[in-house]
């Protein structure tokens, strides 16, 4: 076995801490909150709240191939097989107590932000009911325009202001504005490091693949705003810079550089990685991991947080999604795109067909493949379909090379 790198070791420790600290916490000092995946955790860190992220946990459930069992537990009490499999996996874990990591410690309250989907609102309503705990909803209106409208920003900022007394109420603590500023700066720097890590994939050959970043991303999701998360990305960045210097390639003789658009298929990462490597193709980057690059203006914190937390890619128009994708194709010098038409995640994939049409009509047309899947529930994924589509995608790519 390969020796573990310092950063990988550090990540292991962080993950342990993330799951165990809430279990052992004195809830008066460190209340536990369950959060949707992109909430302003800076507020929570400032109150010494320990946030837990059911979606992240559900991804792990998927990766450890427990998705079907737990989804079925939720379905048995009436949850439809058609709803997001993260929600089903999470609810299944609550009902059965089963989990790859001993489960999530029970929440004292919940924080939900709909900048990723409307599904989380319904999911968190039900969690609030189940655990009988308070829920704060941060509503970030979907942006259909080129720019986020001013009245949306004012409304989101208004809610962030209301979040403070709400938190004071549920935690019994006082919100310290100076400390909040410091935490936001740490969070900012962590995001910056994360962006720098992702940007290293511009190197040819890329020193890592998007599959690696799906592992690297845990702390930016779950521990943003802590010095530990920042330290992790500093370590990781150093190691990766070293790899670049040495010319280490994630995929031997890298030939095709691809973009992954969608949530990973958590239970099928290894075979995908192997299939791609066989064709000397690397997933150089993804629209998914980029969602956690959240950089604020420290001098105008609430306002810029309102903007940054609203401007999540899947909370914005098709036109902006296309712009973002074309920019990545350009910046990372990519040869093609793999789109995950994900039965769980409607906002991530409704519109995909027209996005693809517009991409083909634009100045950055590259070969694409779309496959049907689901991030946690293998019952909605067919390896055979993936493989067949991937083969013909590779043929198209080879042709486009010779032209």
């Amino acid at each position: 076995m390969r020796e573990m790198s310092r950063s990988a070791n550090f990540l292991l420790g962080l993950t342990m801490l993330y799951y165990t600290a809430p279990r052992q916490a004195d809830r008066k000092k460190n209340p536990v909150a369950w959060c949707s995946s992109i909430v302003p955790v800076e507020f929570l860190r400032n109150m010494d709240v320990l946030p837990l992220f059911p979606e992240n946990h559900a991804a792990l459930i998927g990766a450890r191939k427990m998705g079907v069992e737990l989804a079925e537990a939720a379905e048995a009490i009436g949850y439809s097989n058609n709803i997001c499999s993260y929600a089903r996996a999470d609810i299944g874990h609550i009902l059965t107590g089963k989990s790859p990591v001993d489960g999530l410690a029970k929440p004292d309250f919940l924080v939900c932000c709909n900048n990723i989907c409307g599904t989380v609102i319904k999911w968190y309503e039900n969690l609030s009911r189940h655990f009988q705990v308070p829920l704060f909803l941060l509503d970030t209106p979907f942006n259909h325009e080129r720019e986020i409208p001013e009245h949306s920003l004012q409304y989101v900022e208004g809610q962030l202001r209301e979040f403070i007394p709400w938190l004071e109420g549920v935690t019994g603590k006082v919100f310290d504005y100076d400390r909040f500023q410091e935490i936001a700066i740490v969070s900012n720097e962590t995001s910056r490091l994360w962006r720098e890590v992702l940007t290293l994939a511009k190197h040819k050959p890329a020193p890592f693949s998007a599959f690696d970043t799906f592992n690297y991303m845990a702390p930016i999701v779950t521990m943003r705003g802590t010095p530990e998360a920042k330290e992790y990305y500093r370590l990781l960045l150093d190691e990766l810079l070293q790899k670049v210097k040495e010319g280490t390639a994630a995929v031997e003789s890298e030939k095709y550089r691809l973009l992954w658009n969608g949530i990973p298929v958590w239970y099928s990462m290894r075979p995908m990685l192997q299939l791609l490597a066989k064709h000397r193709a690397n997933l150089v980057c993804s629209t998914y991991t980029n969602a956690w690059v959240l950089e604020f203006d420290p001098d105008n914190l609430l306002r810029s947080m309102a903007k940054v937390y609203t401007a999540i890619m899947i909370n914005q128009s098709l036109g902006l999604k296309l712009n973002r994708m074309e920019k990545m194709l350009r910046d990372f010098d990519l040869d093609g795109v793999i789109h995950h038409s994900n039965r769980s995640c409607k906002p991530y994939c409704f519109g995909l067909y027209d996005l693809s049409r517009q991409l083909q009509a634009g100045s950055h047309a590259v070969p694409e493949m779309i496959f049907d899947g689901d991030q946690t529930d293998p019952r909605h994924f067919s390896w055979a379909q993936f493989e067949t589509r991937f083969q013909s995608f590779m043929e198209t790519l080879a042709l486009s090379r010779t032209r």
Partner: protein
Amino acid sequence: MESVLQSLLEVARNPAPAVTAWKQGTNGKVIGWLPIYVPEELIHAAGALPVSLWGGSTEIARADAHLQGFACSVVRSVLEYGLKGTYNMVDGFIFPSTCDHIQNTSDIWAAVFPGRPKFDLVYPANRQSKASAAYLERLFTGLQEWLAALTGSAASEGRLRESIGIYNHYRALSAELAALRSSRPECMSDLEFSLITKSALFLEKTEYNRRLAELLPWLARRTVRPRPKVRLVATGIMAEPQGILQVIDELGGAVVADDLALGARILRAPADETLPPLSALVDRHLRLGPCSTLYDCRKERGSHLLGLAARHNADGVLFLSMKFCEAEDFDYPVLKAELEAAGLPLLLLEVEQQMSALGQVRTRLQAFLEILAQGAGR
């Protein structure tokens, strides 16, 4: 009077001629809106005809090139109708932020019909926030401006006040119709009730109010079926395909009250006429509910259904679950537990607008109604 009834049923079954006739008669604009909540008063006051687009039973062919099969049948069929040209007489479209399906279909719509006027009504989901009223007021002002640009004239405050009055009257008459089906279910079939309600979505409301007001006293004395053996409350997005209602009828049941989006939900909460008109509409939106698509961490839909069943002396609840509708799907397990605990029987039927074979639905309804009939002791 029979002819007034038939005219409404006909509008619901085939709305296009009525909409086209209005357009030719008035030279006005037709504004189509997607479910569930749109302040029609603003459209009415601008002199345009609001028509509500809830999809239908069309076969899906063209829409599949734009939208995956796991989108709900409402957005798939709306897109299909759009691509087929069914909405060619519609001058502008309003997409509310009801759910991820509609929100994302709006962007697809813009890609497919780049030149057609569209307004995105992105509602504040957090209606508890003090910031939501100002946001909503700005949103409705934006809608007014969009309408003014489209119709060529801005609606005065007086006109809006008038429209609000007309819509409050519409809601009051609808409440009378609803009361009638509970007190005398024998006076109209479930299908008739549903079609009358639906016809309102395509008619100018002064006209609709006039016809309904005429109809009500006649309906009250009419008898078209025996007293139902079983009384039901229906909940969900809509009672479609309408064959389901006929099946219930044939089995001796009746829907005596509903909590359907295309039904009681849009007809709730009269606007407060003592407020300035725009504020009245803002205030109304903030009071709407309970509804699966309006954030509610107290989940009041359960107690609402229990209350409805008690008030209307219903024997059970029919949950008409629109396939792929997450909003409804997440409510179901919660309602199931709550209603079971209260001893109120509940039947889940998964429906799609494109569904044509109702054999399974009939079998399940029959079994459910038989059990209820025993319990009801009627």
